[in-house]
């Protein structure tokens, strides 16, 4: 009985070694890949509410403030164009300087 037990142990060991050597031949491994530690800036470093808008210390991309500024500038340009058109239709030129005695 004891001999049979040891025989089974030896056979299993041989099979296990044979199996490992076969995996190595195929280039596969069962070892886990090295872990890569990804680092991100901690949220605490930016503060709970990072400042936005024109005074932000870093580029936050398009914001509502920038959009509003652009919209206001467009509106202003439209007003100027309308005013220029009005002056032109009235036949006026350099209206701001007309008759101004410095």
């Amino acid at each position, binding site marked *: 009985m004891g001999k049979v037990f040891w025989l089974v142990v030896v056979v299993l060991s041989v099979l296990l070694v044979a199996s490992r050597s076969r995996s190595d031949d195929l280039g596969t491994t069962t070892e886990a890949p090295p872990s890569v530690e990804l680092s991100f800036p901690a949220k605490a470093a930016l503060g709970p509410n990072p400042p936005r808008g024109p005074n932000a210390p870093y580029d936050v991309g398009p914001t509502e403030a920038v959009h509003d500024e652009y919209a206001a500038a467009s509106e202003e340009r439209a007003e100027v164009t309308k*005013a220029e*058109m009005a*002056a032109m239709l009235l*036949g006026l030129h350099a*209206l*701001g*300087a007309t008759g*101004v005695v410095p």
Partner: protein
Amino acid sequence: VKRLALVLLGLASCDGADSSGIETQDVRLGPIAFEVPAEWQRTNTEAGGAVSAVWTPATANERKESVSVIRSPLRRTREQLVQGDLATLLAGAQGSLDGARVSQVTPISTRRGLTGARIDVSFQPEGIARRYRRVHVVLVDAETSRLVHVLYTAATPDEDLTALHTVLESLRSEED
């Protein structure tokens, strides 16, 4: 006494003075004739089909006053202008000046039957630290299908706007 006053007033009118009692001179701008204060001198300009002349006091001009008269072609039909957008155009044009504060546009008609609109504006001319005030009157010259602009501009305006009224009360078309 009243009769004497009327006679004196009549004599003053015959002597080149307008109803405000100031000495005046007769001037022309194309077919437009009018009066300006006698002591004021003229400078002519022309741009974009508009002919203009500016009068300023020949001597001391502490108020920085001037009267500009501009005769410009109508860019729209007279009917379109009379029907209401003259006021809109006038407000739009003067409202474009730096720091402009404009009044309501009011209809105006002269003693000699010209009609148009008036706007008052306060603004800060480019490169000048102080604010100026301006009264802009635009009249439709029906006979020549042109607009006549009369602009009184001053840093410290004359409260009676004497020079402006002198021009407006005497303005007439004298097409040859």
